[in-house]
């Protein structure tokens, strides 16, 4: 099956996808909570979004979702109202399956929709995903029937005929002499092309009188042509496109005439309207070409034109147009209102007798219903019905003032009256409904096939503009582009400062220098603000990543017969999208490890004196320029001894060295590649599968990872992440003739020491930095450049990477600057020691040193 969307429906489809996806995440979350701590409010919290999805899916014609969510909603309803079914793991599983299935459907729709998204089409066709959900429906039925009392209640309910009128508009055929018509169509296309061209000119220069004259002339010609054809054919069909062509061209002409005569100015609004006129005319010509009647009347554009010209609109014309167009809807509105209110009124009438204490209230309701009916009758000009309503209102008003007059006979006869009217109305409606159905049925298929372009589409876009959307979707690449530009802006903002200095120093023009500096400051401030704003656009809450973990934890725990509770904190902490994308996998690994190996089985936990249910706490928070994400569990922890043994066994470290190592350093062994995958350690320590992967991932986004664990008490892993990847700060240094950038997040300190303080050991230079022996790396040597000239005083940058400190020997410190990291071109991607490049204010390209490569 395929679905066809018009332009604006297509926008709604995206709204639906976004909103439904959000709802589904929430639902899943709550279903999981429901298993552990059932409560009415939770059931409510599942029911409501499910209900919303059902409602919304109806709008966008995704009937499979509507059906499935509807059945599920019924199931939850049983849970909600009378607790007819119990919350079982069976039920939870089923609900999760439903969510998965709906997600699957939405994903498929989304994939298709994304493909069509950037195309400008008249209609968007989407295949309904062929996702079978009958198995779920069966399961739902089974669960529903699991309770016997439910069956007893299932008495067949006879549904009154619903008031749904067919909505497909009739498309009448037009008969117009072929030759005349074709000539007119061709000519009109040409005229419209000229009009478009002139409109563009007019838009450029609103005073272009020549353009106005040309447009007027062309419009006039079109009008004349349409009149000739109208007079030559016998037609009084309102939907004849020619009628509208004539009307619209006439009004547009009037508009322009007024402008010329009154010497008024053309403004942007008028140009817009004229563009819309041209679009509508094109649509109408297309209709004419295909011999179709107008399916949707371009009332809006006419109203707009009338508004502008102030000309008295041809009331009869518009009204008859609207009546023609909306006959089913108007009838629906009348019958819906009348029938509903009369039906609703009946039980209340009976109450006047059965519940005399509430008489005042009942009368109020009855009068309200009758007045509503009267209003409907008046609006739709139904004379006999108005009379009927007036009589009833008088009667009940009388009762209101003389309550003692209420008696069985009186009321009963009134009920009979109303009943009779109801039957009458229902009959009338059924007759009308049957009639329209007859006319439209054979056309339904054909109409559906061509229903795409609508005449009103063009002027609807104007209305669309004031539709207020609080959220817009923007393709990522646009933001990336913006980021790139802003990056260069930030870099170039330094140029002005340099220029100001140069003017003062080199040319000694203090005044000019000062003014340049003022501008530079302003420029600085604005570009900083711009940068921050764009950064904020890219920020996303970690919730987006966290949200899938409850499900993951539950699945793994269930598979291993463990009881695990996942507590999440600080889900609203925001991170740059690029960072968010990169932390998903590491976190997934870490959590899987925690549940799989960290948390013990319930039996083991009991033995260890812990509660059977293990707890994993996942928290996120902001601190300084970083975001911290911590995963903590109360499992068995990492066995330090086992790690030590393994490290020795693998020859990673000597025994003497090991003795001197701190606990932290020892635990860090689990990040070594290949270290933890060995089965033995996994069995003993139960930790570390894929920890090297985690580390590599985190390092690749300039984050750090810290681990702490206490045997039998649990493990804590802390990720320290940069807020963003794109912009950071760097320390510029000079080595020989080359300049390098060292990322500031790695820099601890810069020191200048005397040459004599450097010790040499096994060809390595070392020095004592705050009671720590730190190795010195000579950048010049790393990059194979000539060595630095021998100075008495040596400049060192102390850097830290993942708890390892070392010093970089440089010639000169040049200062701290903001840098925009540009990735290396592909062929240089694997260059060791360099993580990227940055452009300096004066246009030079500098290499950014990758500290991790230098260790």
């Amino acid at each position, binding site marked *: 099956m395929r679905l066809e969307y018009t332009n*604006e429906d297509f926008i*709604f489809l995206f*709204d*639906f996808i976004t*909103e439904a996806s959000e709802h589904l995440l929430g639902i899943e979350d709550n279903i999981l909570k429901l298993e552990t701590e059932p409560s009415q409010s939770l059931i409510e919290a599942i*029911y*409501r979004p499910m*209900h*919303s999805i*059902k*409602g*919304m899916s*109806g*709008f966008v014609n995704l009937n499979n979702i509507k059906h499935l969510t509807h059945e599920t909603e019924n199931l939850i309803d049983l849970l909600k109202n009378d607790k007819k079914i119990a919350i079982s793991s069976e039920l939870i599983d089923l609900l999760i399956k439903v969510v998965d299935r709906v997600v699957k459907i939405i994903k498929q729709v989304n994939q298709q929709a994304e493909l069509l998204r950037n195309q400008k089409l008249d209609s968007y066709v989407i295949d309904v995903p062929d996702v079978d959900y009958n198995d779920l429906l069966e399961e739902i039925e089974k669960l529903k029937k699991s309770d016997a009392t439910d069956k007893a209640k299932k008495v067949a*309910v006879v*549904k*009154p005929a*619903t008031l749904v*009128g067919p*909505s497909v508009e009739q498309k009448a055929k037009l008969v117009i002499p072929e030759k005349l018509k074709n000539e007119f169509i061709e000519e009109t296309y040409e005229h419209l092309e000229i009009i478009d061209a002139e409109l563009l000119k007019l838009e450029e220069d609103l005073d272009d009188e020549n353009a106005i004259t040309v447009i007027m002339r062309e419009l006039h010609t079109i009008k004349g042509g349409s009149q000739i054809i109208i007079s030559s054919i016998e037609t009084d069909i309102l939907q004849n496109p020619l009628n509208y062509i004539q009307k619209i061209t006439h009004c547009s002409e009037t508009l322009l005439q007024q402008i010329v005569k009154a010497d008024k100015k053309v403004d942007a609004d008028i140009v817009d309207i004229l563009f819309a006129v041209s679009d509508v005319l094109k649509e109408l010509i297309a209709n004419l070409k295909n011999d179709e009647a107008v399916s949707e009347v371009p009332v*809006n554009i006419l109203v707009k034109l009338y508004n502008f010209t102030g000309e008295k609109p041809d009331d009869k014309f518009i009204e008859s147009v609207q009546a023609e167009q*909306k006959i*089913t*809807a*108007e009838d*629906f*509105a*009348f019958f*819906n*209102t009348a029938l*509903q*209110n009369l039906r*609703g009124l009946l*039980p209340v009438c009976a109450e006047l007798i059965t519940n005399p204490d509430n008489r005042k209230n009942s009368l109020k*309701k009855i009068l*309200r*219903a009758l*007045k*509503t009916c009267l*209003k*409907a009758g*008046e*609006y*739709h000009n139904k004379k006999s019905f108005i009379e009927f309503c007036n009589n009833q209102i008088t009667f009940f008003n009388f009762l209101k003032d003389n309550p003692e007059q209420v008696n069985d006979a009186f009321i009963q006869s009134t009920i009979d009256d109303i009943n009779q009217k109801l039957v009458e109305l229902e009959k009338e409606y059924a007759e009308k409904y049957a009639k329209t159905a007859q006319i439209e049925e054979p056309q339904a298929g054909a109409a559906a096939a061509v229903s795409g372009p609508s005449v009103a589409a063009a002027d*609807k876009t104007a*209305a*669309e503009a*004031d*539709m*207020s*959307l*609080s959220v817009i979707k923007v393709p990522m690449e646009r933001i990336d582009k913006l980021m790139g530009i802003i990056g260069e802006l930030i870099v170039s903002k330094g140029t002005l400062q340099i220029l100001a200095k140069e003017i003062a120093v080199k040319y000694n023009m203090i005044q000019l220098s000062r003014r340049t500096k003022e501008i530079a400051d302003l420029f600085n401030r604005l570009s900083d603000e711009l940068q921050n704003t764009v950064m904020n656009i890219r920020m996303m809450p970690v919730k987006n990543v966290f949200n899938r973990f409850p499900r993951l934890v539950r699945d793994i725990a269930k598979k291993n017969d463990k009881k695990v509770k996942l507590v999440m904190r600080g889900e609203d902490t925001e991170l740059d999208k690029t960072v968010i994308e990169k932390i998903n996998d590491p976190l997934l690994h870490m959590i899987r490890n925690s549940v799989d190996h960290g948390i013990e089985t319930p039996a083991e936990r009991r033995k260890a004196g812990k509660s059977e249910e293990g707890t994993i706490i996942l928290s996120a928070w902001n601190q300084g320029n970083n975001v911290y994400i911590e995963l903590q569990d109360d499992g068995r922890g990492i066995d330090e001894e086992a790690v030590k043994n393994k490290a020795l066994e693998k020859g990673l470290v000597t025994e003497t060295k090991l003795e001197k190592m701190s606990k932290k350093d020892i635990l860090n062994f689990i990040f070594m590649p290949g270290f933890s995958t060995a089965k033995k350690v996994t069995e003993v320590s139960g930790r570390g599968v894929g920890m090297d992967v985690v580390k590599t991932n985190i390092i690749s986004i300039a984050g750090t990872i810290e681990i702490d664990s206490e045997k039998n008490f649990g493990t804590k892993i802390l990720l320290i992440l940069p807020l963003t990847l794109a912009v950071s700060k760097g320390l510029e240094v000079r080595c020989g003739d080359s300049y390098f950038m060292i990322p500031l997040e790695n820099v601890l300190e810069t020191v200048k020491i005397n040459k004599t303080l450097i010790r040499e050991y096994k060809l390595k230079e070392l020095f004592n930095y705050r009671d720590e022996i730190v190795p010195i790396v000579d950048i010049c040597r790393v990059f194979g450049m000539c060595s630095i000239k021998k100075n008495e005083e040596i400049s060192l940058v102390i850097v830290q990477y993942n708890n390892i400190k070392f010093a970089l020997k440089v010639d000169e410190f040049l200062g701290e600057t903001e840098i925009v990291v540009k990735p290396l071109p592909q062929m240089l991607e694997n260059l060791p020691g360099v993580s990227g490049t940055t452009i300096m204010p004066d246009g030079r390209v500098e290499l950014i040193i990758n500290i991790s490569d230098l260790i």
Partner: protein
Amino acid sequence: MAKVLVIDDSELVRNFHSYILRSEKFEVVTANDGVEGLEKFFSDKFDLVIVDLNMPRLDGYEVVRQIRDSEDDEEVPIIVISTEDSEDKKAKGFEAGANVYIVKPTEPEKLVANVRTLIGHK
């Protein structure tokens, strides 16, 4: 210009309804839920209220009830819009004081026609 208050917890539905009504030259004010709806209702004057039934914080029935409780003779027309198609939910809507009940999904023309019917010529 007639002023309509649209109370619905779904952004999609709110946008949809406001879009339809605005393009038919109604002034539209929206509210996210019952509580906000009542706040807006009592701080302004409306020609018509469109309210959803299932909403967080305060449901549609209660919204209608509270509006009716606050009124004397002059009553504002209220349209209840919901996916609920059952007769007893409709009856409950009338019980609370609604004028018309429309089942979602709403067809634009029908919604507009109903709104016009209840507001009358203006």
